[in-house]
C-alpha cells in the first residue's frame, strides 16, 4: 500500500515537473528550429534542428562584451554581498541597545518598492561619480536585507561558546566573522551567492538608467536591444534567451544543495 502511494506521489511530481519544464522546452525547441511560436498545429518534436541561430545571435551583438560586463557586475555583487551581509548579520546576532528598532527598520525597508528608490539611488550614484561604471551597476545590490537575515539565522545556529572562546583568545570581531562564522555557514553563503547572482544577472531597470555607453551594457539590456531589432519570433531571439539563461542555470544547479540548505537553515529557530 505504502509502495503504491509512493509511486503515485512520484508520478504526480514527475508530471508537475514536466508541465513546469514545457515553456523551457519550447524555448529551446524554437531556438533550434526557428519555427513560429504560434504555428498551428504545434509540433512537439523539433523538425530539422540546428545551432545556427546561436551563431546568428553570437555575431549579431557583442555577446562576449555583454557577458563580461554581466560577469564583472555579478562578481562585485556576490563578493560585496557576502562581506556586508555577513557583517550585518553578525551584528544582529549580538545584543545591543535598539536592536529591535534596527530590525524593524530593515524589515520596513523591504516594503518600499524598488522603483521608489531609483531616483535617490541615481542621485547618490551620480554624486559618487559612479554612473556608467561596473561599480555603479553593482551598488544597489551590494547588500540585501533578505540575505542579511539569512546570515543572521545561520550565525544564530553557531554555538555562542565558540564566539566567547575566540574572544577570550583575543581574536578581533572581524576575524570572528570571517574566520569562524563564515566557514560554519557554507549553506548561507551558497544561498547568498545564488540569490545575489540571480538578482544581479537579471537586473534590468538600474543598468538601463545609469548606463550611457553601449560597451558597458549587460546581457538583459542586450536582450532588450536585440528584441527591439528582431521583433518577430525568430530563432535567433530565443537562442539569445537561452544563452542569457544558461549561466544562471549552471550556477543554480551547481549550488543547488547548499542553496536549499541555506534557505532552510534557521527555519525552525528564532
Amino acid at each position, binding site marked *: 500500500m505504502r509502495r503504491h502511494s509512493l509511486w503515485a506521489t512520484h508520478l504526480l511530481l514527475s508530471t508537475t515537473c514536466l508541465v513546469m519544464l514545457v515553456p523551457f522546452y519550447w524555448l529551446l525547441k524554437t531556438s533550434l528550429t526557428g519555427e513560429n511560436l504560434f504555428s498551428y498545429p504545434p509540433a512537439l518534436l523539433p523538425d530539422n534542428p540546428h545551432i*545556427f541561430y546561436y551563431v546568428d545571435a553570437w555575431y549579431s551583438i557583442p555577446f562576449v562584451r555583454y557577458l563580461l560586463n554581466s560577469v564583472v557586475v555579478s562578481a562585485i555583487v556576490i563578493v560585496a554581498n557576502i562581506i556586508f551581509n555577513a557583517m550585518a548579520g553578525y551584528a544582529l546576532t549580538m545584543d545591543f541597545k535598539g536592536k529591535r528598532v534596527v530590525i524593524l527598520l530593515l524589515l520596513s525597508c523591504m516594503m518600499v518598492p524598488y522603483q521608489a528608490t531609483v531616483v535617490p539611488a541615481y542621485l547618490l550614484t551620480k554624486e559618487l561619480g559612479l554612473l556608467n561604471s561596473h561599480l555603479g551597476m553593482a551598488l544597489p545590490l551590494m547588500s540585501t536585507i533578505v540575505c542579511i537575515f539569512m546570515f543572521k539565522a545561520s550565525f544564530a545556529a553557531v554555538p555562542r561558546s565558540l564566539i566567547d572562546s575566540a574572544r577570550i583568545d583575543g581574536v578581533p570581531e572581524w576575524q570572528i566573522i570571517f574566520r569562524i562564522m563564515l566557514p560554519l555557514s557554507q549553506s548561507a553563503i551558497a544561498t547568498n551567492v545564488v540569490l545575489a547572482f540571480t538578482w544581479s544577472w537579471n537586473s534590468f531597470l538600474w543598468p538601463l538608467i545609469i548606463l550611457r555607453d553601449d560597451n558597458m551594457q549587460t546581457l538583459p539590456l542586450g536582450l532588450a536591444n536585440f528584441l527591439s531589432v528582431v521583433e518577430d519570433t525568430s530563432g535567433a531571439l530565443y537562442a539569445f534567451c537561452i544563452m542569457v539563461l544558461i549561466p544562471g542555470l549552471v550556477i543554480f544547479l551547481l549550488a543547488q544543495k547548499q542553496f536549499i540548505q541555506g534557505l532552510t537553515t534557521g527555519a525552525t529557530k528564532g
Partner: protein
Amino acid sequence: MLHSALYTLFCNRFAITFGVFLIITAGWNTIVSFNDDGIIKGRVVAADGKPVGGATVTLLNKELLVTVLGSRAMTNEQGQFTFTHHNSHHIWLQAAKDGMGETPRVEFRMYFKGQNLNIETPLSFAENDTKGQ
C-alpha cells in the same frame, strides 16, 4: 598535505564544470583558428552537368535583417571559383553568365565567421533559364 589541498581545490563539481567548459572553449578556438581563412571553393555547372567557365559568382552576406553584397569571383575553365577572406557566417551564392541566366541563390550557414567552405554540390544553371540575358 599538498595532495589533499589540490584534491579539495580541483575535485569538486564547480572546478570540474568550469574546467570542462574551459577545455571545450580552448578546443573550439583551436578548431576555429585552423579553419577561419575565409576560403570558399565551389563549382558552377550547366544543366547538363558540364562546367561553366567565365561565370560570375556573387557572394551575398546575410546579416540579421538584411542581405548585403560581399564580393564576386569568376569561374575558370573547369567551372571552379574561389573566394578568399570572406568574413561572414551566413552567405548566399549565386552564379550568372550572359546567355545562360542565373543559378538559384543557394544559402550556406557556417559555425563561425570566415569558416573555410568546400562546396560539394555545384551551383547549377537550370535548363532553358534565360533570366538576366
